[in-house]
């Protein structure tokens, strides 16, 4: 067991820390997505290799070797200083790696640089109202008409659709093929005629997502990634990537600290909440679980660096456990606050900007989203433990 990163990396850490120190006042405000400030900051981070380090130079990156430890150090130092870590979004996190692996040279040239610097913003068109857990049953169709795909159908859960320039989208192009084999992966502009974006209000009462409707949307034939009918494989290369990131233990640790702070500050009948043995017991229970997930995460990091451990199961449980844990943690904060815990919206007594109720609900959404936790249990038992797949059966 060796939890230090070694001399070389400590030097790198010092370098990052210096950058953070020097640039603290140059970072953009976190909420201004893709402001001029944010784009300038993004470019600075890329230049210095503090985001998207491994994107090849010819596509606008630094072309650095993958180095998990350096990435971790950057995340730790930026996190510690609560420093803006650069632009995120599905174009950067999902489409870029797809194009690097499966795009044509032309597509990489055209899309990667503008995407990573924030000049081109993307949304993801996967889920449909009738295709959630069973994503491969999607029914949005694209038919070839001359040199164009003609797209009709509907997507849902499309975050950022209202501001995106482009969409990467799964559509059914071979209706006769078996369901996983009839899908293609298309790229098209969101201002193409026939696209309507409607905000989808969720239980947090905010439009975090959208519905997107396609009516005879015409898209040039060549805007496809991978071959016709191979869109499922293109998309699937990344689905696993998304899941692990839905419940990062660092964030749980930081929320736990915020909860501990509340419990020291708030009182009921003059007694600090932390002095209530029942609430303290619940806090300690949650803390034990957060610790287990944090060390599990360290183990996963180590396994990615050293590649000498089988951590298949340890990785598979992160989404399932992490989302339930966060939902409970946020719920505990609401519970201990009593009536004040109900505050939401413009209520002046709301604590921490209403994040407790928001995250309590949002994490219930994440228990469902990104592959419901029931689907996660299927995956763990089937792929993790080798138990039989659900038998096929039509039940109507």
């Amino acid at each position, binding site marked *: 067991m060796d939890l230090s990163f070694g001399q070389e990396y400590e030097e790198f850490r010092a370098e990052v820390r210096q950058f953070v120190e020097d640039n603290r006042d140059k970072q953009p405000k976190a909420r201004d997505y893709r402001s001029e400030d944010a784009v300038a900051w993004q470019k600075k981070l890329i230049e210095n290799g503090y985001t998207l380090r491994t994107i090849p130079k010819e596509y606008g990156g630094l072309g650095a070797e993958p180095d998990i430890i350096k990435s971790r150090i950057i995340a730790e130092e930026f996190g510690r200083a609560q420093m803006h870590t650069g632009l995120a979004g599905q174009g950067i996190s999902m489409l870029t790696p797809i194009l690097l692996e499966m795009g044509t040279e032309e597509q990489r040239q055209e899309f990667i640089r503008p995407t990573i610097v924030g000049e081109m913003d993307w949304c993801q068109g996967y*889920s449909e109202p*009738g*295709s*959630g*857990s*069973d994503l491969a*049953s999607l029914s949005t169709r694209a038919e070839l008409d001359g040199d164009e795909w003609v797209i009709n159908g509907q997507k*849902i*859960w499309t975050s950022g659709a209202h501001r995106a320039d482009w969409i990467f989208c799964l559509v059914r192009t071979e209706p006769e093929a078996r369901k996983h084999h009839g899908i293609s992966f298309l790229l098209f502009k969101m201002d193409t005629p026939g696209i309507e974006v409607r905000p*989808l*209000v*969720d*239980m947090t*009462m905010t439009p975090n997502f959208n519905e997107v409707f396609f009516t005879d949307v015409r898209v040039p034939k060549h805007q496809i990634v991978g071959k016709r009918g191979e869109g499922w494989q293109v998309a699937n290369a990344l689905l696993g990537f998304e899941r692990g990131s839905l419940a990062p233990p660092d964030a749980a640790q930081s929320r736990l600290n915020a909860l501990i702070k509340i419990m020291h500050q*708030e*009182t*009921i*009948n*003059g007694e600090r909440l932390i002095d*209530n043995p*029942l*609430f303290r017991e619940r806090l300690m229970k949650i803390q034990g679980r957060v610790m287990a997930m944090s060390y599990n995460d360290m183990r996963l990091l180590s396994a990615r660096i050293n590649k000498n451990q089988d951590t298949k199961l340890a990785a598979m449980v992160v989404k399932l456990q992490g989302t339930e844990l966060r*939902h409970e943690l946020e*719920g505990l904060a*609401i*519970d201990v*606050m*009593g*009536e*004040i*815990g*109900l*505050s*939401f*919206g*413009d*209520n*002046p*007594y709301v604590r921490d900007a209403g994040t407790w*109720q928001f995250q309590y*609900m949002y994490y*219930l*959404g994440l*228990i*469902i*989203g990104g592959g*419901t*936790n*029931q689907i996660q*249990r299927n995956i763990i038992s089937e792929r993790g433990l080798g138990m039989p797949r*659900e038998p*096929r*059966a*039509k*039940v*109507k």
Partner: protein
Amino acid sequence: MEFGLSEEQTLLQDSINRYLSEELPLDQVRKIATGDVPDSSVWQGLTELGIPGLLIPEAQGGVGLGYLDAAIVSESLGYHVTPGPFLASAIIAPVALNLAGGQEALLSSIADGSRRVGIAFGEAVGARADAGFTVADGKISGKSLFALDSNADDYLVADADCNLYLVSAADVKRTNLSTVDMTRSTCELVYDNAEATLVSRDVNVFIEALDAGRTMQAADTLGAAQSMLDQAVAYSMQREQFDRLIASFQAVKHMCADMVANLEPCRAMVWYAGHALDELPDEKRLMACHTKAHLQEVGQQVAKTSTEVHGGMGFTDLVGLHYWFKRIGANRQLLGSPEMLREEAARIQGFAA
């Protein structure tokens, strides 16, 4: 021996349910929640059915029914996430005013729908550093938080010693405090030497009103959770994934079975708690505490599970399931958390100091 609802009670519940099914579709709830329509719209209709006067003696124009009757009405209101001031103005305030005596005129006004009485019980139930007030010489100064009903005409205010005062809304500075539950309102009251009429110095008046309120909250959660269970089963019977109704997956079936297993015994518990308030003075306090605490735990489990059964749809405003989810959440936090209630249950039995 009959443990169950009488024919009259069943008829009462049916008629309320029928009214709410017809007059309060989800879209109407949504309009009231977002403030497009005032909650008085539905309260008006319920007044015509006699709801505000349920517990008020006939002599004051009420219906003079019992707590068990009120509990089954509360259950129906919860089932339909009915907006309005039922808990404060039809239960807690009338119970207190009636027991305290000398408030016949106000009770009549409540019964005929011309006045709504809110409550501000924070100091007596669990005082917060942000609030607090003093009463002297019939005048009140200070602040109450999370008073029930932002649209009341009067407030019944309890101090730390469980004395009860009436304060007119016209005499206070009132600010709506928005919560996740948009079907019922809470507010801040700022008193600046406002008139405060003493209603009761008898702690038992406060306690019975609180017990009644808590029992009705439990009944409200029973109804809301039953609706969420029904909605989950119905959704699972029409939603298909992987060429199957999701209701055919054992995971979904067992989630629904667990909701039933937790919720169904709660029905008898709520009935008994209502009956205890009516007839069993030795048991009523313990029942009120345990019933609210237990229902809020079960309600939370049902609310989460039903949302999960709905998948992504459960998370949207499209099906509006969250109105039930949040209503159950509000019942949990208001007038005593489960932990607080269980400590109280322990004290009632002499198990705690």
